């Protein structure tokens, strides 16, 4: 025996080393099944990561510093044009935001009625990607946030564009491993936006995203958006995953659906780790409501440029006031206080049209001083709104008082002529405009608000007013639609709310 071993010494050592590794592998496989994924971390893994990641972090830091120095101080070519384009884009997005916020409000009201419980992202941690696994068989990345920042296994990781993956291991206070959604071992519950079909998102061998478990007799069109379904208990519902790029018959009567990921998974730099998700129903007392996953994504990424001066979009009003007029940049907003036309503090609200217009396409603008006719209307209910320091797209959430809100007078005409039944403002008051919350803030609280485009309306390129729904931050519920015609009779608030949305959409030249 000894002879054989000495004669085949090298082969014996090879077999011994292989055997030891197979044995170790077998133990791990068994353990993984018993104790669950990501619960125990091997020491060799910790050592290796600790040895490698400091260099990666240093390099990333040096690279970002040099890049920041270059881009922020030296290479400013085209910045002015880019800034102009971005501003234009922001204006367009604001119009869209107004429309979407109306839909969101309605959804919240319905959820409230149904006692619907929803997951809200209440806290996120921004992190920098510092390294990868370096293997095509293991699509994971390392981030510079860890235990000290509240990062734990199985937390969702997202970007502004869509989901990224989940936290797999937390190695120390400042290092964690994130499994990307395009890894073959990953699985995410998803739903197709239009067809409402639910499936499981998995990664393929070449790093693509595929949706499984959708029967082949279903109809799925390329281009359809795919969102998280919330069924995996990791990703909150409604986060964007990607769009369908290819649909083909697959195995076992299922469709083979390939996706184009919404987030650029191959070039990740900054990501957000969702460290706290609350499972609760929207509360009537929280008018602006906790920030939902989609709300966070609209304002929370480092890549999102800073908001323009707050005066263009925001205004605050004291409880009881019903109209907020945004100021033009650098000016105060104007609030028109109106007598209540019903119980509580219900009244009609007026907004102004901003005739100033720059660039192409519709823009939002505000105007101070000049008492322009009302184009949109909002109703403040008897529930005193929270003093908000930031206007919210979520404003307008229904309260109990709103349900019984009596009919309200119709708002003023869009074209500038007064309506027959419209009461005139009795008082015009200037209120200071407050800055929006910093979009780069790391933590959001459930009460964090999203900047609103309250009190503004769209203006066509020729200066004509475009009916738009107007929503001051402090106002709970839109009561009357933005009228298209000059004369519009009063209608109940409940029935007016939705048409207002439509009107704003239809009137939006975009």
């Amino acid at each position, binding site marked *: 025996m000894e002879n054989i071993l000495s004669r085949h010494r090298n082969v014996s050592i090879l077999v011994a080393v292989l055997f030891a590794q197979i044995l170790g592998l077998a133990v791990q496989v068994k353990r993984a099944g018993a104790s669950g994924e990501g619960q125990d971390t091997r020491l060799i893994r910790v050592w290796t990561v600790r040895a490698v990641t400091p260099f990666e972090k240093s390099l990333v830091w040096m690279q970002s510093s040099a890049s920041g120095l270059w881009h922020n101080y030296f290479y400013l070519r085209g910045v002015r044009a880019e800034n102009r384009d971005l501003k234009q884009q922001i204006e367009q997005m604001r119009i869209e935001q107004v429309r979407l916020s109306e839909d969101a409000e309605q959804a919240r009201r319905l959820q409230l009625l149904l006692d619907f419980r929803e997951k809200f992202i209440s806290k996120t941690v921004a992190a920098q990607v510092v390294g990868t*696994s370096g293997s095509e068989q293991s699509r994971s990345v390392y981030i510079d946030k860890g235990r000290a920042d509240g990062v734990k296994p199985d937390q969702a990781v997202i970007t502004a564009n869509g989901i990224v993956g989940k936290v797999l291991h937390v190695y120390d206070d400042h290092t964690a491993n994130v*499994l990307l959604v395009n890894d073959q071992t990953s699985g995410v519950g998803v739903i197709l936006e239009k067809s409402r079909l639910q499936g499981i998102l998995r990664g393929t061998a070449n790093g693509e995203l595929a949706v499984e478990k959708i029967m082949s007799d279903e109809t799925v069109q390329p281009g359809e958006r795919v969102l998280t379904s919330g069924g995996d208990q990791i990703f909150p519902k409604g986060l964007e995953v990607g769009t369908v790029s290819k649909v083909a018959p697959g195995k076992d009567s299922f469709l083979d659906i390939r996706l184009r990921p919404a987030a650029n998974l191959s070039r990740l730099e900054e990501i957000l780790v969702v460290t706290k998700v609350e499972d609760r129903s929207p509360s009537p007392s929280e008018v602006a409501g906790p920030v939902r996953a989609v709300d966070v994504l609209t304002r929370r990424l480092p890549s999102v440029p800073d908001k323009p001066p707050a005066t263009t979009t925001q205004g605050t009003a004291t409880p009881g006031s019903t109209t907020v007029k945004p100021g033009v940049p650098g000016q105060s907003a104007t609030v028109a206080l109106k007598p209540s036309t019903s119980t509580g503090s219900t009244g009609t609200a007026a907004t102004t049209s901003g005739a100033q217009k720059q660039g192409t396409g519709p823009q939002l603008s505000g105007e101070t001083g000049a008492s322009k006719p009302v184009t949109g209307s909002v109703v403040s209910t008897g529930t005193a709104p929270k003093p908000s320091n930031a206007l919210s797209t979520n404003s307008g959430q229904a309260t109990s008082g709103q349900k019984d809100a009596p009919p309200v007078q119709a708002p003023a005409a869009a074209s500038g002529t007064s309506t027959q039944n419209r009461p005139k403002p009795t008082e015009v008051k200037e209120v200071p405009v407050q800055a929006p919350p910093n979009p780069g803030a790391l933590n959001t609280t459930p009460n964090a608000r999203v900047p609103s485009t309250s009190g503004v309306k769209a203006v066509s390129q020729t200066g004509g007013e475009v009916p738009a729904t107007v929503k001051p931050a402090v106002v709970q519920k839109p009561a009357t639609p933005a009228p298209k015609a000059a004369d519009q009779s009063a209608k109940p608030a409940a029935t007016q709310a939705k048409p207002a949305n439509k009107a704003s959409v239809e009137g939006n030249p975009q």
Partner: protein
Amino acid sequence: MPILYTSQDQIEVYRFNIPTAIFVPLAALFLQAFVPLRFPGFAMLDLPLLVVIFFGVARRSQVAGLLTGAVIGLLQDSLTHQPIGLYGIAKTVVGYGASSLGVKIDVENIGARFLGSASFYLVHQCIYFVVARGMVQLRLQWSWPHELLAAVINAFVAVFLFAALDRLKQRT
């Protein structure tokens, strides 16, 4: 008496000083983990594997080759989220094979290096795939076009990498 396809000079056994033996594999691991962050296509390369092949061929010691492969493979496994040992097993075999081959053929030749690296890459991937699917039950898919392309790319890089690493060799 084994048949050798090399001259006496070609079966010269090389050794490396300790810093080189430690730094080169670590640098390969580091680059493998960091560069794909900026250049995603870099993940097609397997620098640690190329280093294993180079050390195995140069040292021409089967034990040293397999141990080098095992250590580098295990470290590479540590950076992934998969069970530790998948790369370890594959690279142990490759390290053994490379050192065995180094004794028998002229591995200083560019053509031999190219073919050898491509072959070892395919062997490595095959072993990884078999172990990962058969033992760990990972849902891996084998794609011949992808693997062949990766083999050619790795072999191409290996030619230049080996030429650079040749400068670190020390004759025994």
